[in-house]
């Protein structure tokens, strides 16, 4: 349903262009839940914005296409995009605190979105607004509430309700749970999953908290320095992460059950994207580096249904490493 191919986003800065998203390709099927994880600065939010065509200068798409329901979004005009937004594709932004208009009631904001897409009479507007609010577990009386009257969790759910006004085919979520505590977080995740099962929309879910998506996403995309480090089935990646970076991310996450293991973490920091190295971008932080990593840029290789960008899994170097 959604096909991103070779998407490249560059930021123009004083010191030349910075390639924040570099040749990213993946597909999202109908009703699929794709999790995108990575550290801050790895380009995951830029990727989302690139998909939703919400980039503003100095960022711009320099290559690649985003095909949604057979149409290339990159080539569309703003007017054409406006017709698709909310109706077929909606975006839930990172902080609902800022995404909702503080001087308008929740109902008025819902009505705005509905009117923009041609629902003009009052009755269906109220009915649909109440219906989506009920779907996310908020009492419809809150249509009259202003954002500040709702708790953080409710605001976040109201945003999701708004995204569902037209029963879109794809909902893009950028860390929707980052402001919530664990109990509210899980209840929201479960609810999103429930709604997805009922309504059948696909989700792209961006987060830096890998464990959050472990039980909810079908597929997982691990991003590092603007590139796909690893992409494949979530359970498979969690069970046996291939890329040293995925492995590090996973080990960096402390558990509360079982024996206490010393935390390993990943030494160093994400690289500066304005200087593209010759070899692997993860090299300075990699515990498994080999000689050719400094000179050869790894390509994505397929291995047991998972694509991974690491020279360890290129057949000839595998032999050399062993």
């Amino acid at each position: 349903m959604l096909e991103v191919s070779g998407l490249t986003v560059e930021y123009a800065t004083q010191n030349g262009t910075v390639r924040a998203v570099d040749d990213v390709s993946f597909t999202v099927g109908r009703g699929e839940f794709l999790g995108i994880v990575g550290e801050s600065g790895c380009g995951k939010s830029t990727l989302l914005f690139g998909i939703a065509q919400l980039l503003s200068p100095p960022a711009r798409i320099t290559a690649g296409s985003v095909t949604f329901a057979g149409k290339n979004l990159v080539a569309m005009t703003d007017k054409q995009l406006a017709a698709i937004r909310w109706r077929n594709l909606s975006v839930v932004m990172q902080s609902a605190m800022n995404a909702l208009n503080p001087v308008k009631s929740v109902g008025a904001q819902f009505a705005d979105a509905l009117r923009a897409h041609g629902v003009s009479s009052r009755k269906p507007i109220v009915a649909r607004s109440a219906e989506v609010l009920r779907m996310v577990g908020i009492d419809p009386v809150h249509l009259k509430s202003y954002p500040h009257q709702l708790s953080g969790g409710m605001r976040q759910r109201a945003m999701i309700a708004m995204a569902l006004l037209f029963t879109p085919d794809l909902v893009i979520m950028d860390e929707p749970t980052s402001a919530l505590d664990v109990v509210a977080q899980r209840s929201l995740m479960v609810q999103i999953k429930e709604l997805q099962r009922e309504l059948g929309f696909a989700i792209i879910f961006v987060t830096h908290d890998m464990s959050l998506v472990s039980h909810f996403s079908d597929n997982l995309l691990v991003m590092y320095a603007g590139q796909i480090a690893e992409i494949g089935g979530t359970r498979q990646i969690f069970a046996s992460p291939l890329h040293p970076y995925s492995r590090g991310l996973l080990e960096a996450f402390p558990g509360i059950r079982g024996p206490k293991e010393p935390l390993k973490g990943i030494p160093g920091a994400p690289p500066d994207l304005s200087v593209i190295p010759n070899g692997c971008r993860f090299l300075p932080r990699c515990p498994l580096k080999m000689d050719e990593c400094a000179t050869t840029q790894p390509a994505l290789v397929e291995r047991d249904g998972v694509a991974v960008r690491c020279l360890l899994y290129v057949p000839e170097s595998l032999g050399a490493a062993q």
Partner: protein
Amino acid sequence: MTELLRADNLTRHFKIGATLSRRTLHAVDDVSFSIGEREIVALAGESGSGKSTVARLLARLYKPTGGQVLFEGKPISAIRSRRDKLRYSGQVPMVFQDPFSSTNPVFRVSHGVLRVLKLHRPELSARERQAEAQRVFEVVGLGADMLQRYRVGFAQALAARPKLILADEPVSMLDVSIRIGLLNLMTKLRDSEGVSILYITHDIASARYVADRLIVMYAGQIAEVGPIEDVLAGPKHPYTQLLLSAVPDPKAPPPSAAALAAAVGERGEPPKVIDPVPGCRFLPRCPVSTDICGKVTPELRVLTATREIAGAAAAAGEVAVATDEATREVACHVAQSGVDVKAFS
């Protein structure tokens, strides 16, 4: 372990609503706990449970409505003179949540630290201040890499030779890999500088790696206190059980459909405690409540001597936190009546 700070029946209410409104928000209600020397205590709870208010009370940013805080045996309400206030704020500094808004962007990082040194340690000469700032930067691992802004708060706190650092969600905005650096820093401060830390967080998994004891707050009250490994291994309060069950665990198998259905049901929000009536505040969300829960507010009581648990853990080959007078305390009628509470798993 010697006691460094103790809060006795600490209470803080806020008036809310219009001028004539009589409604009060009970942000912190009758909270008692202690922090020992060289001890990291984690304070966990949902947003709105009063954990930040507790830190602000300890930092003297708020005056308590009731109860008192004893620091090294002396009530902090007795601090009056400017000198004493300065001394206390140097000994009990606070590190705030957001490193981006809690440091002044127009000054160099060293400015903050030098200023603290000038204020709190006037006996140092300018050259000694420079040297001390250098030492502090080395301790927190703040070298040439000034990207690590999150360590600045700790550097400033450390400059005044603190005894207790109040760290209000210092890692909540950080990536996992950076987070670990900060967790290690906190352990290092305890072990090498002998500092106690009150580590406020909603991330229990990270607390496990630094804290000796865990205090779980719910709706302005303490639900459960105990050595952190013991609490994680066997939470007694239904809320603690809910909290722990909600922590995502990538290593565990995916939850069953029934467990997920139950999770949808717990949509309940942490209550805003406005003019509360007696009774347990977790009651509306509690699956194991009894009649008494709606009538009497449960008090925090000792449940089991830690030594027994520690002994059992040692026998099982696990590491137990050995603190002498630490005990498991729970504020739950059902758990206190001897029932083994299993509300959420």
